[in-house]
Protein backbone atom coordinates (compact mmCIF):
# COMPACT_ATOMS: atom_id res chain seq x y z
CA UNK A 1 0.00 0.00 0.00
CA UNK A 2 2.81 2.41 0.98
CA UNK A 3 4.63 1.48 -2.20
CA UNK A 4 1.53 2.26 -4.29
CA UNK A 5 1.25 5.71 -2.74
CA UNK A 6 4.90 6.44 -3.47
CA UNK A 7 4.55 5.40 -7.12
CA UNK A 8 1.57 7.66 -7.49
CA UNK A 9 3.50 10.56 -5.95
CA UNK A 10 6.39 9.89 -8.38
CA UNK A 11 3.97 10.08 -11.31
CA UNK A 12 3.43 13.76 -10.52
CA UNK A 13 6.99 14.45 -11.68
CA UNK A 14 6.20 13.06 -15.12
CA UNK A 15 5.17 16.27 -16.93
CA UNK A 16 8.19 18.29 -15.72
CA UNK A 17 10.57 15.41 -16.43
CA UNK A 18 9.18 15.07 -19.92
CA UNK A 19 9.71 18.78 -20.63
CA UNK A 20 13.27 18.65 -19.25
CA UNK A 21 14.05 15.54 -21.27
CA UNK A 22 12.69 16.77 -24.59
CA UNK A 23 13.87 20.38 -24.44
CA UNK A 24 17.08 20.21 -22.40
CA UNK A 25 18.58 16.73 -22.20
CA UNK A 26 17.91 15.57 -25.75
CA UNK A 27 19.20 18.87 -27.24
CA UNK A 28 22.25 18.71 -24.96
CA UNK A 29 23.11 15.20 -26.13
CA UNK A 30 22.24 15.75 -29.78
CA UNK A 31 24.76 18.60 -30.04
CA UNK A 32 27.30 15.83 -30.63
CA UNK A 33 25.43 14.59 -33.68
CA UNK A 34 24.60 18.03 -35.10
CA UNK A 35 28.27 19.01 -34.83
CA UNK A 36 29.00 16.55 -37.64
CA UNK A 37 26.58 18.25 -40.03
CA UNK A 38 26.79 20.93 -42.62
CA UNK A 39 23.43 22.54 -42.12
CA UNK A 40 21.94 25.96 -42.87
CA UNK A 41 18.85 25.49 -40.72
CA UNK A 42 16.37 25.43 -43.60
CA UNK A 43 17.86 22.85 -45.97
CA UNK A 44 18.47 19.19 -45.14
CA UNK A 45 21.65 18.58 -43.16
CA UNK A 46 24.64 16.95 -44.88
CA UNK A 47 26.94 14.76 -42.74
CA UNK A 48 30.54 15.97 -42.99
CA UNK A 49 32.23 13.88 -40.30
CA UNK A 50 34.77 15.68 -38.16
CA UNK A 51 35.19 18.65 -40.51
CA UNK A 52 33.52 21.09 -38.11
CA UNK A 53 35.64 19.91 -35.23
CA UNK A 54 38.91 20.32 -37.09
CA UNK A 55 37.72 23.72 -38.23
CA UNK A 56 37.42 24.74 -34.56
CA UNK A 57 41.17 24.35 -34.16
CA UNK A 58 42.09 26.60 -37.06
CA UNK A 59 39.36 29.20 -36.55
CA UNK A 60 41.19 32.38 -35.54
CA UNK A 61 37.95 34.26 -34.79
CA UNK A 62 36.93 31.55 -32.32
CA UNK A 63 40.18 31.78 -30.35
CA UNK A 64 40.04 35.57 -30.48
CA UNK A 65 36.56 35.43 -28.99
CA UNK A 66 37.82 33.07 -26.29
CA UNK A 67 40.42 35.75 -25.47
CA UNK A 68 37.72 38.42 -25.35
CA UNK A 69 35.66 36.21 -23.05
CA UNK A 70 38.65 35.70 -20.75
CA UNK A 71 39.21 39.46 -20.65
CA UNK A 72 35.54 40.04 -19.91
CA UNK A 73 35.63 37.51 -17.06
CA UNK A 74 38.91 38.92 -15.72
CA UNK A 75 37.28 42.34 -15.41
CA UNK A 76 33.79 41.35 -14.36
CA UNK A 77 34.31 38.43 -11.99
CA UNK A 78 36.65 39.93 -9.34
CA UNK A 79 34.59 43.13 -9.30
CA UNK A 80 31.38 41.11 -8.93
CA UNK A 81 32.79 39.09 -6.02
CA UNK A 82 34.27 42.13 -4.25
CA UNK A 83 31.11 44.17 -4.61
CA UNK A 84 28.90 41.30 -3.43
CA UNK A 85 31.05 40.80 -0.35
CA UNK A 86 31.59 44.48 0.49
CA UNK A 87 27.96 45.45 0.07
CA UNK A 88 26.61 42.41 1.94
CA UNK A 89 28.94 43.19 4.87
CA UNK A 90 28.20 46.92 4.81
CA UNK A 91 24.43 46.56 4.94
CA UNK A 92 24.23 43.61 7.35
CA UNK A 93 21.90 44.48 10.19
CA UNK A 94 21.45 48.13 9.18
CA UNK A 95 18.17 49.92 8.63
CA UNK A 96 18.82 50.13 4.89
CA UNK A 97 19.45 46.42 4.36
CA UNK A 98 16.06 45.65 2.86
CA UNK A 99 15.85 48.74 0.68
CA UNK A 100 19.36 48.27 -0.76
CA UNK A 101 18.74 44.61 -1.51
CA UNK A 102 15.43 45.39 -3.19
CA UNK A 103 17.11 48.06 -5.31
CA UNK A 104 20.12 45.95 -6.32
CA UNK A 105 18.01 42.93 -7.25
CA UNK A 106 15.63 44.97 -9.43
CA UNK A 107 17.77 45.31 -12.62
CA UNK A 108 17.96 41.53 -13.00
CA UNK A 109 14.19 41.32 -13.22
CA UNK A 110 13.19 44.48 -15.02
CA UNK A 111 13.03 44.08 -18.79
CA UNK A 112 16.44 43.69 -20.39
CA UNK A 113 15.31 45.41 -23.57
CA UNK A 114 14.02 48.37 -21.59
CA UNK A 115 17.24 48.56 -19.61
CA UNK A 116 19.28 48.54 -22.80
CA UNK A 117 17.28 51.53 -24.05
CA UNK A 118 17.70 53.36 -20.73
CA UNK A 119 21.47 52.78 -20.87
CA UNK A 120 21.64 53.84 -24.49
CA UNK A 121 19.93 57.17 -23.76
CA UNK A 122 21.90 57.67 -20.56
CA UNK A 123 25.44 56.83 -21.68
CA UNK A 124 25.55 57.37 -25.45
CA UNK A 125 28.80 59.28 -26.12
CA UNK A 126 27.18 61.55 -28.72
CA UNK A 127 24.02 62.66 -26.94
CA UNK A 128 23.54 60.65 -23.71
CA UNK A 129 22.40 62.45 -20.59
CA UNK A 130 25.51 61.71 -18.52
CA UNK A 131 28.00 62.94 -21.18
CA UNK A 132 25.80 66.04 -21.70
CA UNK A 133 25.59 66.91 -18.02
CA UNK A 134 28.99 65.88 -16.69
CA UNK A 135 31.26 65.82 -19.72
CA UNK A 136 32.33 62.30 -18.71
CA UNK A 137 32.35 60.18 -21.84
CA UNK A 138 32.95 56.45 -22.16
CA UNK A 139 33.46 56.10 -25.94
CA UNK A 140 31.93 52.62 -26.15
CA UNK A 141 30.60 53.10 -29.67
CA UNK A 142 34.04 53.66 -31.19
CA UNK A 143 36.77 52.39 -28.87
CA UNK A 144 37.25 48.64 -28.37
CA UNK A 145 38.49 48.94 -24.77
CA UNK A 146 35.57 51.17 -23.79
CA UNK A 147 33.02 48.86 -25.40
CA UNK A 148 34.20 45.93 -23.30
CA UNK A 149 34.10 48.04 -20.14
CA UNK A 150 30.59 49.15 -21.06
CA UNK A 151 29.39 45.54 -21.36
CA UNK A 152 31.10 44.69 -18.06
CA UNK A 153 29.40 47.63 -16.32
CA UNK A 154 26.00 46.65 -17.68
CA UNK A 155 26.50 43.05 -16.55
CA UNK A 156 27.55 44.18 -13.06
CA UNK A 157 24.55 46.49 -12.97
CA UNK A 158 22.27 43.54 -13.74
CA UNK A 159 23.84 40.76 -11.69
CA UNK A 160 25.43 42.19 -8.55
CA UNK A 161 22.15 42.12 -6.63
CA UNK A 162 22.13 38.34 -7.03
CA UNK A 163 25.64 38.10 -5.54
CA UNK A 164 24.69 40.35 -2.63
CA UNK A 165 21.62 38.23 -1.84
CA UNK A 166 23.56 34.97 -1.90
CA UNK A 167 26.39 36.40 0.24
CA UNK A 168 23.95 37.97 2.66
CA UNK A 169 22.10 34.66 3.06
CA UNK A 170 25.43 33.01 3.90
CA UNK A 171 26.29 35.76 6.40
CA UNK A 172 23.07 35.08 8.23
CA UNK A 173 23.94 31.40 8.33
CA UNK A 174 27.00 32.09 10.51
CA UNK A 175 26.02 31.28 14.11
CA UNK A 176 26.00 34.34 16.34
CA UNK A 177 27.67 32.41 19.21
CA UNK A 178 30.87 31.90 17.21
CA UNK A 179 31.30 35.63 16.74
CA UNK A 180 30.29 36.36 20.34
CA UNK A 181 32.83 33.88 21.66
CA UNK A 182 35.62 35.57 19.69
CA UNK A 183 34.58 38.99 20.99
CA UNK A 184 34.56 37.69 24.56
CA UNK A 185 38.09 36.43 23.93
CA UNK A 186 39.06 40.02 23.10
CA UNK A 187 38.99 40.00 19.28
CA UNK A 188 38.29 43.35 17.62
CA UNK A 189 35.51 43.71 15.04
CA UNK A 190 38.11 43.74 12.26
CA UNK A 191 39.64 40.53 13.55
CA UNK A 192 36.25 38.86 13.87
CA UNK A 193 35.59 39.71 10.25
CA UNK A 194 38.99 38.59 8.96
CA UNK A 195 39.41 35.46 11.04
CA UNK A 196 35.86 34.17 11.35
CA UNK A 197 33.41 35.71 8.93
CA UNK A 198 35.55 35.68 5.77
CA UNK A 199 36.77 32.07 6.10
CA UNK A 200 33.22 30.91 6.75
CA UNK A 201 32.11 32.61 3.55
CA UNK A 202 34.59 30.50 1.56
CA UNK A 203 32.08 28.00 0.13
CA UNK A 204 29.72 30.82 -0.88
CA UNK A 205 32.49 32.68 -2.70
CA UNK A 206 33.45 29.45 -4.44
CA UNK A 207 29.84 28.97 -5.50
CA UNK A 208 29.63 32.54 -6.83
CA UNK A 209 32.96 32.19 -8.64
CA UNK A 210 31.84 29.06 -10.45
CA UNK A 211 28.37 30.42 -11.26
CA UNK A 212 30.01 33.66 -12.43
CA UNK A 213 32.46 31.81 -14.66
CA UNK A 214 29.77 29.66 -16.21
CA UNK A 215 27.76 32.81 -16.80
CA UNK A 216 30.73 34.67 -18.35
CA UNK A 217 31.48 31.80 -20.68
CA UNK A 218 27.94 31.22 -21.84
CA UNK A 219 25.93 34.43 -21.68
CA UNK A 220 25.79 37.03 -24.34
CA UNK A 221 22.39 38.73 -24.27
CA UNK A 222 24.06 41.89 -22.90
CA UNK A 223 26.47 41.94 -25.85
CA UNK A 224 23.62 41.44 -28.27
CA UNK A 225 21.63 44.27 -26.74
CA UNK A 226 24.44 46.78 -26.31
CA UNK A 227 27.15 46.37 -28.93
CA UNK A 228 26.40 43.36 -31.16
CA UNK A 229 29.99 42.26 -30.81
CA UNK A 230 31.50 45.53 -32.04
CA UNK A 231 33.30 47.82 -32.51
CA UNK A 232 35.80 45.74 -34.50
CA UNK A 233 34.79 42.52 -32.76
CA UNK A 234 36.05 43.86 -29.43
CA UNK A 235 33.03 42.55 -27.51
CA UNK A 236 32.48 39.35 -29.48
CA UNK A 237 32.43 36.95 -26.55
CA UNK A 238 32.23 33.21 -27.11
CA UNK A 239 28.45 32.99 -26.81
CA UNK A 240 27.92 35.85 -29.20
CA UNK A 241 30.26 34.30 -31.76
CA UNK A 242 28.18 31.14 -31.50
CA UNK A 243 24.98 33.10 -32.09
CA UNK A 244 26.43 34.99 -35.07
CA UNK A 245 27.76 31.86 -36.71
CA UNK A 246 24.56 29.89 -36.31
CA UNK A 247 21.83 32.45 -36.77
CA UNK A 248 23.34 35.29 -38.78
CA UNK A 249 25.64 33.29 -41.06
CA UNK A 250 23.33 30.25 -40.98
CA UNK A 251 26.04 27.70 -40.23
CA UNK A 252 24.14 25.72 -37.63
CA UNK A 253 26.30 22.62 -37.94
CA UNK A 254 29.42 24.59 -37.14
CA UNK A 255 27.37 26.39 -34.48
CA UNK A 256 26.74 23.02 -32.83
CA UNK A 257 30.49 22.38 -32.87
CA UNK A 258 31.05 25.74 -31.13
CA UNK A 259 28.35 24.85 -28.58
CA UNK A 260 30.31 21.69 -27.84
CA UNK A 261 33.51 23.72 -27.53
CA UNK A 262 31.85 26.12 -25.04
CA UNK A 263 30.47 23.22 -22.99
CA UNK A 264 33.86 21.52 -22.76
CA UNK A 265 35.65 24.77 -21.84
CA UNK A 266 33.02 25.52 -19.18
CA UNK A 267 33.32 22.10 -17.57
CA UNK A 268 37.10 22.27 -17.66
CA UNK A 269 37.34 25.74 -16.12
CA UNK A 270 34.70 25.07 -13.46
CA UNK A 271 36.46 21.84 -12.51
CA UNK A 272 39.89 23.50 -12.28
CA UNK A 273 38.50 26.39 -10.25
CA UNK A 274 36.76 24.07 -7.83
CA UNK A 275 40.00 22.12 -7.34
CA UNK A 276 42.31 25.10 -6.97
CA UNK A 277 39.98 27.06 -4.69
CA UNK A 278 39.10 24.04 -2.57
CA UNK A 279 42.80 23.24 -2.10
CA UNK A 280 43.64 26.83 -1.23
CA UNK A 281 40.77 26.85 1.25
CA UNK A 282 42.05 23.67 2.85
CA UNK A 283 45.64 24.95 3.19
CA UNK A 284 44.40 28.20 4.75
CA UNK A 285 42.35 26.29 7.26
CA UNK A 286 45.37 24.34 8.46
CA UNK A 287 47.73 27.32 8.87
Amino acid sequence: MIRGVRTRAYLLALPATLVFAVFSLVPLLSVLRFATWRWSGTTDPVPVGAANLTRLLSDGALWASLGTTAMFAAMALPTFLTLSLVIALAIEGTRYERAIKALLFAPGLITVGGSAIAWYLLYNPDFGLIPELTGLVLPWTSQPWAALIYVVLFTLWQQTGYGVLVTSAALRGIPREVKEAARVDGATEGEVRRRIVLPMLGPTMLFLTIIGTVFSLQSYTAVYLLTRGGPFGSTRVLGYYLYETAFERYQLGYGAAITLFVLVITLLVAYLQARVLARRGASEATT
Partner: protein
Amino acid sequence: MIVMRLVTVAFATFVALPLLWLVYAAFIPAEALVRANLATFGFSLENFAALGGTGLWRAMAVSFSATGLAVAGQLAFGLGAAYAIRNGLRLLALVMLLLALPSELLLVPLYRQLQTMALIDTLGALVVPFLASPLVVFLLLQGLRRVPWEVIEAARLDGAGEITIVRRVVAPILRPELTASAVLAFAAHWNLVLYPRIMTSEALWTVQAFLTELLRARAFEWGLLGAAALVASLPLIVLYLFFEKRIIEVFESGFRS
Protein backbone atom coordinates in the same frame (compact mmCIF):
# COMPACT_ATOMS: atom_id res chain seq x y z
CA MET B 1 33.64 50.26 7.39
CA ILE B 2 33.32 53.81 6.08
CA VAL B 3 34.92 52.79 2.79
CA MET B 4 32.50 49.88 2.54
CA ARG B 5 29.55 52.17 3.14
CA LEU B 6 30.80 54.59 0.50
CA VAL B 7 31.16 51.78 -2.02
CA THR B 8 27.61 50.68 -1.23
CA VAL B 9 26.19 54.17 -1.67
CA ALA B 10 28.10 54.72 -4.91
CA PHE B 11 27.01 51.40 -6.35
CA ALA B 12 23.40 51.88 -5.26
CA THR B 13 23.38 55.21 -7.08
CA PHE B 14 24.85 53.57 -10.16
CA VAL B 15 22.08 50.95 -10.06
CA ALA B 16 19.28 53.43 -9.40
CA LEU B 17 20.21 55.86 -12.16
CA PRO B 18 19.13 53.82 -15.22
CA LEU B 19 15.99 52.69 -13.37
CA LEU B 20 14.93 56.27 -12.65
CA TRP B 21 15.89 57.28 -16.15
CA LEU B 22 13.82 54.42 -17.57
CA VAL B 23 10.77 55.94 -15.90
CA TYR B 24 11.59 59.52 -16.85
CA ALA B 25 12.73 58.98 -20.45
CA ALA B 26 9.17 58.03 -21.46
CA PHE B 27 8.07 61.61 -20.84
CA ILE B 28 10.87 63.40 -22.73
CA PRO B 29 9.32 66.27 -24.70
CA ALA B 30 9.85 66.41 -28.45
CA GLU B 31 11.97 69.58 -28.12
CA ALA B 32 14.75 67.40 -26.69
CA LEU B 33 15.23 65.86 -30.12
CA VAL B 34 14.87 69.20 -31.93
CA ARG B 35 17.54 70.75 -29.73
CA ALA B 36 19.52 67.51 -29.95
CA ASN B 37 19.91 67.57 -26.18
CA LEU B 38 18.63 64.91 -23.80
CA ALA B 39 19.11 67.30 -20.88
CA THR B 40 16.04 69.22 -22.07
CA PHE B 41 13.79 68.50 -19.14
CA GLY B 42 10.04 68.66 -19.42
CA PHE B 43 6.96 66.51 -19.37
CA SER B 44 5.02 65.21 -22.32
CA LEU B 45 2.57 62.38 -22.95
CA GLU B 46 2.81 62.52 -26.74
CA ASN B 47 5.33 59.65 -26.80
CA PHE B 48 2.70 57.20 -25.63
CA ALA B 49 0.31 58.26 -28.38
CA ALA B 50 3.05 57.57 -30.94
CA LEU B 51 3.36 53.95 -29.74
CA GLY B 52 0.10 53.03 -31.47
CA GLY B 53 1.54 52.49 -34.94
CA THR B 54 4.68 50.62 -33.89
CA GLY B 55 3.27 47.16 -33.16
CA LEU B 56 4.12 47.36 -29.47
CA TRP B 57 0.60 46.45 -28.36
CA ARG B 58 0.59 43.35 -30.51
CA ALA B 59 3.95 42.31 -29.05
CA MET B 60 2.59 42.91 -25.55
CA ALA B 61 -0.37 40.61 -26.30
CA VAL B 62 1.97 37.87 -27.55
CA SER B 63 4.19 38.25 -24.49
CA PHE B 64 1.28 38.17 -22.06
CA SER B 65 -0.22 35.00 -23.55
CA ALA B 66 3.08 33.14 -23.91
CA THR B 67 4.45 34.18 -20.52
CA GLY B 68 1.13 33.52 -18.77
CA LEU B 69 0.85 29.98 -20.16
CA ALA B 70 4.51 29.22 -19.41
CA VAL B 71 4.26 30.43 -15.81
CA ALA B 72 1.07 28.42 -15.20
CA GLY B 73 2.82 25.31 -16.50
CA GLN B 74 5.97 25.92 -14.48
CA LEU B 75 4.03 26.24 -11.23
CA ALA B 76 1.78 23.20 -11.79
CA PHE B 77 4.50 20.91 -13.14
CA GLY B 78 7.09 22.29 -10.73
CA LEU B 79 4.85 21.56 -7.76
CA GLY B 80 4.36 17.98 -8.95
CA ALA B 81 8.07 17.45 -9.49
CA ALA B 82 9.07 18.99 -6.14
CA TYR B 83 6.47 16.85 -4.35
CA ALA B 84 7.74 13.69 -6.04
CA ILE B 85 11.34 14.54 -5.09
CA ARG B 86 10.28 15.18 -1.50
CA ASN B 87 8.70 11.70 -1.57
CA GLY B 88 12.04 10.18 -2.52
CA LEU B 89 12.28 10.42 -6.31
CA ARG B 90 15.91 10.91 -7.36
CA LEU B 91 15.58 13.84 -9.70
CA LEU B 92 17.42 16.58 -7.83
CA ALA B 93 20.76 16.02 -9.61
CA LEU B 94 19.10 16.58 -12.97
CA VAL B 95 17.41 19.74 -11.71
CA MET B 96 20.73 21.12 -10.44
CA LEU B 97 22.44 20.30 -13.74
CA LEU B 98 19.77 22.14 -15.71
CA LEU B 99 19.96 25.06 -13.32
CA ALA B 100 23.53 25.64 -14.51
CA LEU B 101 22.65 25.34 -18.19
CA PRO B 102 21.40 28.58 -19.74
CA SER B 103 18.97 28.19 -22.63
CA GLU B 104 21.07 30.74 -24.57
CA LEU B 105 23.71 28.08 -25.05
CA LEU B 106 21.43 25.40 -26.47
CA LEU B 107 19.79 27.51 -29.17
CA VAL B 108 21.21 25.44 -32.03
CA PRO B 109 20.01 21.99 -30.90
CA LEU B 110 16.75 23.50 -29.61
CA TYR B 111 16.12 24.94 -33.04
CA ARG B 112 16.43 21.46 -34.53
CA GLN B 113 14.21 19.98 -31.85
CA LEU B 114 11.45 22.53 -32.48
CA GLN B 115 11.83 22.00 -36.21
CA THR B 116 11.26 18.23 -35.94
CA MET B 117 8.24 18.88 -33.74
CA ALA B 118 6.89 21.45 -36.25
CA LEU B 119 6.85 24.11 -33.55
CA ILE B 120 9.02 26.73 -35.30
CA ASP B 121 7.11 29.98 -35.74
CA THR B 122 4.15 28.96 -33.59
CA LEU B 123 3.00 30.18 -30.21
CA GLY B 124 3.93 26.69 -29.01
CA ALA B 125 7.62 27.49 -29.58
CA LEU B 126 7.31 30.23 -26.96
CA VAL B 127 5.36 28.06 -24.51
CA VAL B 128 6.00 24.30 -24.68
CA PRO B 129 9.78 24.25 -23.96
CA PHE B 130 9.14 26.56 -20.99
CA LEU B 131 6.44 24.51 -19.28
CA ALA B 132 8.90 23.39 -16.61
CA SER B 133 11.72 25.30 -14.97
CA PRO B 134 14.53 23.91 -12.80
CA LEU B 135 14.63 27.12 -10.72
CA VAL B 136 10.94 26.79 -9.83
CA VAL B 137 11.37 23.12 -8.88
CA PHE B 138 14.36 24.09 -6.73
CA LEU B 139 12.56 26.92 -4.92
CA LEU B 140 9.40 24.88 -4.30
CA LEU B 141 11.48 21.99 -3.00
CA GLN B 142 13.13 24.32 -0.46
CA GLY B 143 9.64 25.33 0.68
CA LEU B 144 8.46 21.72 0.91
CA ARG B 145 11.09 20.99 3.57
CA ARG B 146 8.97 23.18 5.82
CA VAL B 147 5.80 21.12 5.39
CA PRO B 148 5.25 18.80 8.38
CA TRP B 149 4.99 15.29 6.97
CA GLU B 150 2.31 14.19 9.47
CA VAL B 151 -0.14 16.46 7.66
CA ILE B 152 0.47 14.58 4.42
CA GLU B 153 0.25 11.17 6.14
CA ALA B 154 -3.00 12.18 7.80
CA ALA B 155 -4.51 13.27 4.49
CA ARG B 156 -3.45 9.94 2.98
CA LEU B 157 -5.11 8.01 5.82
CA ASP B 158 -8.26 9.98 5.11
CA GLY B 159 -8.12 8.51 1.62
CA ALA B 160 -7.09 11.65 -0.27
CA GLY B 161 -5.40 11.06 -3.64
CA GLU B 162 -1.94 12.47 -4.33
CA ILE B 163 -3.20 15.18 -6.67
CA THR B 164 -5.77 16.28 -4.09
CA ILE B 165 -3.05 16.40 -1.43
CA VAL B 166 -0.83 18.59 -3.61
CA ARG B 167 -3.70 20.91 -4.48
CA ARG B 168 -5.45 21.12 -1.12
CA VAL B 169 -2.67 20.60 1.41
CA VAL B 170 0.72 21.39 -0.12
CA ALA B 171 -0.14 24.31 -2.38
CA PRO B 172 -1.75 26.46 0.36
CA ILE B 173 1.28 25.99 2.64
CA LEU B 174 3.67 26.86 -0.19
CA ARG B 175 1.93 30.08 -1.12
CA PRO B 176 4.96 32.31 -0.40
CA GLU B 177 7.20 30.12 -2.60
CA LEU B 178 4.57 29.86 -5.31
CA THR B 179 4.16 33.62 -5.42
CA ALA B 180 7.90 34.30 -5.54
CA SER B 181 8.43 31.57 -8.16
CA ALA B 182 5.62 32.97 -10.25
CA VAL B 183 7.19 36.43 -10.33
CA LEU B 184 10.70 35.10 -11.03
CA ALA B 185 9.36 32.79 -13.75
CA PHE B 186 7.34 35.62 -15.24
CA ALA B 187 10.41 37.86 -15.37
CA ALA B 188 12.64 35.14 -16.83
CA HIS B 189 10.21 34.38 -19.65
CA TRP B 190 9.23 38.01 -20.30
CA ASN B 191 12.93 38.85 -20.64
CA LEU B 192 13.79 36.30 -23.33
CA VAL B 193 15.39 38.24 -26.18
CA LEU B 194 17.25 36.02 -28.62
CA TYR B 195 15.09 32.95 -28.31
CA PRO B 196 11.88 34.52 -29.70
CA ARG B 197 13.85 36.30 -32.44
CA ILE B 198 15.24 33.01 -33.66
CA MET B 199 12.29 30.67 -33.19
CA THR B 200 9.46 32.90 -34.44
CA SER B 201 8.98 35.49 -37.17
CA GLU B 202 7.89 39.07 -36.67
CA ALA B 203 4.16 38.38 -36.19
CA LEU B 204 4.95 36.40 -33.03
CA TRP B 205 7.71 38.59 -31.64
CA THR B 206 7.58 39.15 -27.93
CA VAL B 207 8.04 42.52 -26.30
CA GLN B 208 11.81 42.12 -25.93
CA ALA B 209 12.35 41.08 -29.52
CA PHE B 210 10.24 44.06 -30.52
CA LEU B 211 12.22 46.48 -28.33
CA THR B 212 15.59 45.45 -29.72
CA GLU B 213 14.27 45.96 -33.24
CA LEU B 214 12.82 49.37 -32.33
CA LEU B 215 16.16 50.45 -30.86
CA ARG B 216 17.83 49.48 -34.12
CA ALA B 217 15.27 50.98 -36.50
CA ARG B 218 14.39 54.22 -34.70
CA ALA B 219 17.50 54.95 -32.69
CA PHE B 220 16.98 58.71 -32.62
CA GLU B 221 13.34 58.90 -31.56
CA TRP B 222 14.28 59.13 -27.93
CA GLY B 223 10.83 59.81 -26.53
CA LEU B 224 9.33 56.90 -28.44
CA LEU B 225 12.10 54.57 -27.26
CA GLY B 226 11.65 55.74 -23.68
CA ALA B 227 7.89 55.23 -23.76
CA ALA B 228 8.19 51.77 -25.33
CA ALA B 229 10.81 50.76 -22.76
CA LEU B 230 8.59 51.89 -19.90
CA VAL B 231 5.41 50.22 -21.20
CA ALA B 232 7.32 46.96 -21.79
CA SER B 233 8.77 47.08 -18.27
CA LEU B 234 5.62 48.13 -16.46
CA PRO B 235 4.23 44.63 -15.75
CA LEU B 236 7.52 43.64 -14.12
CA ILE B 237 7.89 46.91 -12.22
CA VAL B 238 4.39 46.52 -10.79
CA LEU B 239 4.90 42.85 -9.88
CA TYR B 240 8.24 43.63 -8.26
CA LEU B 241 6.93 46.58 -6.24
CA PHE B 242 4.12 44.38 -4.92
CA PHE B 243 6.06 41.24 -4.15
CA GLU B 244 9.64 42.45 -3.62
CA LYS B 245 9.79 41.44 0.04
CA ARG B 246 8.51 37.93 -0.59
CA ILE B 247 10.78 37.36 -3.60
CA ILE B 248 13.90 38.38 -1.69
CA GLU B 249 12.97 36.24 1.32
CA VAL B 250 12.26 33.12 -0.71
CA PHE B 251 15.33 33.64 -2.85
CA GLU B 252 17.61 34.08 0.18
CA SER B 253 16.21 31.16 2.12
CA GLY B 254 16.65 28.99 -0.99
CA PHE B 255 20.40 29.70 -0.84
CA ARG B 256 20.87 29.51 2.90
CA SER B 257 21.24 25.75 2.95
